[in-house]
């Protein structure tokens, strides 16, 4: 297959309020691409549009939201052009997603096995018995002890870490090509988090998944991801290889994010947070959305929204500071 596995071009998703008066640009002109076997981290504060982006990919937006422009190229085909029933065949089977709260994600009235077997039965038409066997194997694959017993149990009988593994098992049950993980470790205990991340990484390698990891935690991104995309107020402000961006961030927001991570042995005595709050998504400031909080603000930033500029190899930054002498990248 030529070209990236997943390519998002200039995608915009807007929420329109009930009376049509307020428009919230939840995702604004986002361009990303992902190859097989790669891990992309999407970073941002809450409300930056990361989850909306994931839901847009899967065309699982609430009725108030609309994809206004752009393309979602998956395996060379634009997902925006697919019908709802076609999308249903893709969800769970070719693109899977893990949600944040494992207790809430599992239906309390059905056994764990039933819920893991479900996508297998629906997408692959497997019989009950076969699907159940597959489910048990999947539980083993996500490292749950005594899978034959666990498979018959109910979600409330399992611990939080185990539940999240079940959710992972559900996700990989039909061998998807892309796995989206939306803050999968946020509700887990710290001690479990590392184990879970390792599991995800191993699963990715063994199934050759393309992994999109949504999080607000830069530390996790550093450990798990090859590429990173930083979002702010619905826009992609910086993207590129993780090592490069962590070493030399081009956008002031990324710089501030990296600086705010407390490190042991730091000479600074105080924790530096970024001043101010993220903007109201329905009424973002004119020009660059970050300008009210930007320490490197220029006059231009207040009135003109910067486009994406190429900075070094495969790294882009949406900031006037990165503007080269010649024209900006599309």
């Amino acid at each position: 297959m030529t070209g990236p596995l997943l390519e998002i071009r200039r995608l915009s998703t807007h929420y329109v309020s009930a009376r049509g008066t307020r428009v919230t640009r939840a995702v604004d002109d986002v361009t990303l691409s992902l190859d097989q076997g790669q891990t992309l981290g999407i970073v941002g504060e809450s409300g930056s549009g990361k989850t909306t982006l994931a839901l847009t990919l899967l065309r699982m937006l609430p009725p108030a939201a609309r994809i206004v422009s752009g393309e979602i190229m998956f395996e060379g085909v634009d997902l925006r052009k697919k019908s709802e029933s076609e999308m249903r065949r893709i969800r769970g089977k070719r693109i899977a997603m893990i949600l944040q709260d494992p207790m809430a994600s599992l239906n309390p009235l059905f056994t764990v096995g039933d819920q893991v077997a479900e996508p297998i039965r629906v997408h692959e038409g497997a019989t009950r018995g076969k699907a159940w066997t597959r489910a048990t194997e999947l539980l083993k694959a996500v490292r749950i002890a005594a899978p034959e017993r666990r498979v018959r149990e109910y979600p409330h009988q399992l611990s939080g870490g185990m539940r999240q593994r079940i959710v992972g098992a559900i996700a990989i049950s039909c061998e998807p090509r892309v796995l989206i993980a939306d803050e999968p470790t946020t509700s887990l205990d710290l001690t479990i988090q590392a184990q879970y991340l390792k599991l995800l990484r191993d699963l990715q390698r063994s199934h050759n998944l393309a992994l999109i990891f949504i999080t607000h935690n830069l530390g996790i991104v550093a450990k798990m991801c090859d590429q990173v995309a930083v979002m702010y107020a619905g826009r992609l402000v910086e993207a590129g290889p993780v090592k490069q961006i962590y070493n030399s961030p081009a956008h002031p927001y990324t710089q501030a994010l990296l600086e705010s991570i407390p490190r042991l042995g730091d000479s600074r005595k105080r924790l530096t947070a970024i001043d101010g709050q993220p903007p109201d998504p329905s009424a973002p400031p004119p020009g660059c959305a970050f300008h009210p909080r930007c320490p490197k603000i220029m006059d231009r930033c207040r009135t003109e929204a910067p486009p994406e500029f190429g900075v070094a190899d495969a790294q882009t930054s949406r900031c006037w500071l990165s503007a080269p002498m010649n024209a900006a990248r599309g």
Partner: protein
Amino acid sequence: MKKFIIKRLGLALISLFLLSLTIFLLMRVTGDPAVLLAEPGASQADLDAIRAQFGLDRPLYVQYVSFITHLIRGDFGQSFYYRTDVFELYMSRLPASLLLAAAAMTFSLVVGIPTGIVAAVRVNQWWDSIGKVFALLGLSMPSFWVGLVMILFFSVYLGWLPSSGSGTVLHLIMPSIALGWVFAASHMRLTRSSMLEVLGSEYVKLARLKGLPEALVISKHAFKNALIPVLTLAGINLVIMVNVAVVVETVFAWPGVGRLLFEGIAFRDFPVVQATVLLGGVMIVVVNLLVDILYAVIDPRIRYEG
């Protein structure tokens, strides 16, 4: 599971105790119990005889013990009007009330649940608005008025249905609709809100993310979860129906325990009134207990919490 049942049983017994105590005290405390226990038109000598017979001069707790022992033995006294054992009288009328309640409950569920589900799935659209209006009307119209208007319409004007008595299915139609109407509205409301809550839950979201067809998401994942609170309510409502049916049974001259209560009042037949209230309360407690247990059977989480 056993622990759960025992605990619930204990609570039920406490409720029964408090119920009997309340009824007992109320009767003794408000006015002269001898007058109530004597037949209408009793002389002073009769009243004194009653006082002696029931031991109304003895200390309260002694009276209460006597009261309770009688009750446990099934002795609720004699009806003045019917001259038979009240307990037997009640039991002979109970099946009719249960039949009416069952029919009314069926009506309320058959109308209420699907309407609620449709209203939730098509939330804020036409069906939902119609459903809301229906629910509001249902909760605002007294059941006996609905019955009276139906009689006016279907018996007097159209002559299709009989206006009173029992015996055939035709006799059952109007009373069960009149009785079930209010509950249909409340079941519809609860189904709708419960369904909406479930449809917005994370596990439904995940079910959709799995790529399951929408029909399966609703029928398998949403439905069962949404139904839990509704069935609980329905169970409790069943007994409330039997008790509230007094007005509907009166309107349609339906021979149930509700009408028995009405007769008791009309004929100043106090033992009947007391027994109806007591037994009505007992039924509520028993049914609540059964509903709790049923709940535990459906929802596996409850079993382990006990």
